[in-house]
């Protein structure tokens, strides 16, 4: 299983190839790319920062939750850090299972959960200046998101 923070480009072929197995009939991927706009403002590029050791540990936790919920054990996820240009892949996820339903669910859960508990930060550079995008404050007591937030500082 791949759970990786990397400063190199995310290679989707590598992720999907790692899940190549004759019993796996459904393979679902998600590709998160850098967008040229955010909250109505133009974005020129992004920086992603991570706490790499904890981030990979939390990605493995997400994988464990996926196994528990959907029975899916064939997963690959990679998140890039550093300066990224518009159109670059920030995050890649691949999930495979015998049938498609579990693969779709696992893939969706993985990206949603990464945004909640994996310590990765995004700094947007745009026409309007520079801003940390603060998507999700973690409640340390419960290790879960505090509430729906989408503030910029």
């Amino acid at each position, binding site marked *: 299983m791949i759970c990786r923070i990397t400063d190199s480009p995310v290679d989707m072929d590598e992720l999907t190839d790692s899940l190549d197995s004759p019993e796996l009939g459904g393979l679902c991927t998600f590709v998160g790319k850098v967008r040229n706009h955010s909250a109505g403002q133009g974005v020129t590029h992004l920086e992603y920062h991570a706490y790499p050791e904890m981030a990979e540990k939390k990605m493995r936790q997400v994988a464990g939750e996926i196994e528990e919920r959907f029975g899916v054990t064939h997963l690959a996820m990679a998140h890039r850090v550093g300066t990224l240009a518009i159109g670059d892949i920030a995050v890649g996820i691949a999930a495979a299972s015998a049938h498609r339903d579990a693969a779709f669910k696992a893939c969706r859960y993985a990206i949603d959960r990464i945004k909640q*508990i994996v310590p990765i930060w995004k700094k947007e550079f745009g026409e309007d200046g520079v801003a940390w995008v*603060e998507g999700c404050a973690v409640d*340390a007591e419960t290790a879960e998101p505090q509430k729906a937030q989408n503030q910029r500082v």
Partner: protein
Amino acid sequence: MKVRVKCFAWAKEVTGEEEIDLEVPESATVADLRDSLAERFPVFSGRMESIAVSVNQEFAGEGTPVDAGDELALIPPISGGCA
């Protein structure tokens, strides 16, 4: 005792450091660490609620003990992935 705390993203920017040393009482908890942090860097006081603390790479509640040998970090709101 002195503890070393990693700073990420906004926390790294406002402290100007990747790691800071904070003085906390013996048998300190995360709450003591926050007190020490706010005293040294008042900028945290206003938004302490949104900053999580991790101890040995796990999110840690206010009563969690912290020791000089622990890996401690300040975790501002996260924004990984891509919408």
